[in-house]
């Protein structure tokens, strides 16, 4: 029996739910694993844990590298814990190095939370595919909630498609911007602005304070032109400074107000249901693609089509139709997901 198989057996649901950190760590390893038998175990575990997410709040946080996400989480997280909550921090990192290995320095950047007994930080290695990263982050949220963490922060670097994914697995999506970002508002992807429930201007201290105030005003103005995600919630823009610890309390108050407001009339569970439905489709797409790519005949066909597409003899869409036709021919039998 291999080491990880041994650890699979060790994920004791009762211990996980009692808040054992080591058990949670092992459970997270299980959902991170790419091995099919681990996946099955993971599904069983996820089915077995008690789902009582109503008491939790899931916060997504995005911003470009250097905006100060980790520093803010360290200070903000400390404040949240002082209010009597338990906090889990997960990271979605879609970047992968040449070799596929990752450098995980999150705890270095959150030295306060790293030693706080009420915080659990789990940096997760970059995956081969964004879909894989997203899947295990969703699973990780469920496991952290089962282990008694009632505030979950999912952090992502604001590049590529990761913001949309994270906003789709969280209740509240925060966008972090540097002071001065207002000058180049057109440079911020409109799509990201549309996802934001809250905009946080970081590093609003010292010489940057005036600049931050100007940015906040500009962004507040711009955000009114965007259709909000929740009709009675206009995304607030606020300034914070992790070094001066200013704006932190206000940020938490806003989070609480948001939570209260969207929970009225069971809207929060409505949102989560919709997310679950969308997630099912995302998963379906991903699994179909995985099966398609793993199919030997499709791969052979792909090789033969490649040169024709590259040389321009065959249009990409025609080639795609041929691949899908090939796959359907292969799959003409019991559906692969039916087993």
């Amino acid at each position, binding site marked *: *029996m*291999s*080491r*990880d198989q*041994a650890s699979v057996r060790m994920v004791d649901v009762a211990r996980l739910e009692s808040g054992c*950190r*080591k058990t*949670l*760590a*092992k459970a*997270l*390893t299980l959902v*991170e*694993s*790419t*091995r099919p038998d*681990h996946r099955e175990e993971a599904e069983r575990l996820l089915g077995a844990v008690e789902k009582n997410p109503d008491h939790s709040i899931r916060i997504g946080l995005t911003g470009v590298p250097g905006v100060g996400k*980790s*520093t803010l989480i360290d200070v903000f997280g400390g404040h949240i814990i002082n209010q009597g909550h338990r906090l889990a921090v997960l990271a979605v990192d879609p970047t992968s*190095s*040449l*070799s*596929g*290995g*990752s*450098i*995980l*320095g999150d*705890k*270095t*950047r959150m*030295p306060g939370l*790293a*030693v706080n007994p009420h915080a*659990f*930080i*789990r*940096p997760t*290695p970059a995956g081969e595919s964004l879909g894989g990263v997203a899947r295990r982050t969703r699973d990780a949220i469920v496991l952290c909630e089962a282990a008694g963490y009632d505030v979950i922060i999912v952090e992502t670097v604001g590049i590529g498609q990761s913001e949309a994914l994270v906003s789709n697995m969280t209740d509240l999506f925060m966008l972090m911007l540097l002071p001065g970002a207002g000058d180049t508002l057109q440079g911020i992807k409109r799509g990201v602005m549309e996802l934001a429930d809250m905009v946080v201007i970081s590093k609003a201290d010292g010489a940057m304070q005036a600049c931050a105030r100007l940015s906040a005003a500009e962004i507040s103005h711009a955000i009114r032109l965007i259709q909000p995600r929740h009709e009675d919630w206009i995304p607030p823009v606020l300034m914070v400074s992790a*070094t001066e610890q200013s704006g932190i309390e206000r940020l938490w108050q806003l989070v609480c107000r948001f939570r209260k407001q969207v929970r009225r009339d069971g809207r929060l569970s409505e949102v989560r249901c919709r997310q679950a439905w969308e997630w099912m489709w995302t998963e379906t797409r991903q699994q179909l693609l995985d099966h398609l790519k793993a199919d030997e005949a499709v791969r052979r066909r792909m090789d033969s089509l490649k040169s024709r597409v590259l040389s321009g003899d065959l249009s990409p869409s025609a080639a795609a139709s041929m691949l899908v036709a090939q796959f359907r021919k292969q799959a003409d039998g019991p559906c692969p997901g039916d087993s």
Partner: protein
Amino acid sequence: MNQAFDADADPAMAKWRRQAAAERVRCGVDNQVWMTPEGIPVKPVYTAADLDGIAHLESLPGQPPFTRGTTATMYSTRPWTIRQYAGFSTAEESNAFYRDCLAAGQTGLSIAFDLATHRGYDSDHPRVEGDVGKAGVAIDSVEDMNLLFDQIPLDRMSVSMTMNGAVLPVMAMFIVAAQEQGVDQSALSGTLQNDILKEFMVRNTYIYPPRPSMRIVSDIIAYSAGHMPRFNPMSISGYHMQEAGATVVQELAYTLADGIEYVRAALSHGLQVDQFAPRLSFFFATGMNFFMEIAKLRAARTLWADLMDEHFSPENPDSLRLRTHCQTSGVSLTSLDPYNNIVRTTIEALAAVLGGTQSLHTNSFDEALALPTEQSARIARNTQLILSHETGIRNVVDPLAGSYYVESLTGSLIREARVLIDEIEEAGGMTAAIEAGLPKLRIEEASVLRQARVDQEQEVIVGVNRYPLERETPVDIRILDNHAIRKAQVGRLERVRKSRDKRAVTRSLDALAEVAASGSGNLLESAVAAARARATVGEISDALASVFQRYRAEPGVLGGVYGRAYEGREEFRVIQERVMAFARSEGRRPRILVVKLGQDGHDRGARTIATAFADMGFDVDIGPLFQTPEEAVSQAIENDVHILGISSQVAGHRTLVPAVMAGLKERGSDDIKVVCGGVIPQDDYAYLYARGVSAIFGPGTSVPEAALQILDILESDRVQEHA
């Protein structure tokens, strides 16, 4: 362009070229230019044509820009100061050692403090359990300082103190100890390192954030300008940059850029440049690139004079004069075949002297293994005494002046360093550049590239990657009883706390915090009052931290540099394939947590390992600096790693590693394998293996070697579990 044209036109040169080409063909050598790590091309021969356009050639010793030396007669009238850096755990032991050294011909003192003191903690603080007495002497209060200098006349002995983080309490206690000895501060001579900027770049023994740290620096400069005319308030240091892997050009450029930043800080304090600039001093490393190191000191003096003149136009020529201390390179020492280190140190010392240093520390040959013994310290000191008294080297000033090669190298270094200095200026000066993390990344990149060169034997280290010994002979080394040292230190601390006037202590600390908060008044002046009232290093540091906060770095780690240097190499491909095979069968990549424990901030090794392992396909977690064993154990368990790697440079392993092993066991996680790396004496290997450590990688282990061994451990672990 011009000089190449001239050389081409010269018929004698053309003939030389043909001859050289023939010799290269005969010997099968095709490389005619040696590209140094700094990217300076070195040709096989230099001629007068290479001196074209070099401005400093006509200068004389003792005259600006001081290329040829700080004084007109240099060592012929005043030999360099033999200043050996040392500190032995306790004040009593260090004091006895210093007095022996002075009797044996040493001419100045250089105090090494322990890690707890550097970081502003008292010896009884729970975070420093493994650090007290490590790498130097523990100082908690002025009583320790009194013992340290017992019977050493401070009005006649120049004292250098390597202190950067806890500069205020340590300097204050030095001043008070002198006063209690009957010596007025105006009579004190020596140097305080007080160079905080480089701590943020490489050595990590800072306490407060960059900006309040700069205030401390300028307050000390101002205080000494007013009260201590013979004391150098700072030693602007490139040494630790080279030790951390910086190239000579980076060391030169960043050190001078730091210097400019300090001058600006002092000027903004209201001082005039000539009030303090003559007392600024420097500190460089001397490595094995012999002529480059000589040229570096000549280039440093020239550049400093030019920069000072350009930026600040001082009236006193002394403000243009760069005076420096040098130390032979610690990273050039090897733990394998260690007697070779005596030879290396001799060559490096010769380079420092030919470059015109004002004082010199020569390393002991066993410093890659442990702290020096009396025997090894004696050999190190005698290396300088022999150079000074037996070679005749002191009789001629700047003997390599006019060498085509050395002058050309000097010119190249000046030019290349200028480029980097301009880059820092464009970033808004050194404090801003450091906040942006620019120099740290540059140095780290150079360091990783050097590791790759050594691992690939492109750089030869005799006795390590070439001509290794079949069997290493054991060397006698000094072993510290960390627990006993700490106990003695804590006992004295308690006595001090009992016997002092508590209200006076509180008053003085409140006053200090007030000066820190208000931004007016001098911090050192207030610290002197607190030290006199018997406030401790920890209390003074905490009073300041209540206003300034303790600084926590957020280091980014760069990826890809090591891997690129290995592109296409078979051994690297083999490792990557084994990593992938592991990932396929386990469902995830091998995951390793790399930590440093205790207050030791030398993280070059840990960071190099982290980036190299990620490039080989491992998932690498990095622990924050200054972790306790318990924190490292928690992180290993919570991140669910396969391997916990501990990097140790300053002898903390005997206390801290067993604590880690016990912690893992207690939490039922001893399936996590522990490996150690860094400066660990051979004698301790058995001790660590007996406590369950799986592998130990000494200096000289190549990174691929370490990776293969770790993969072996992981794979055998799996086989065992299968059985």
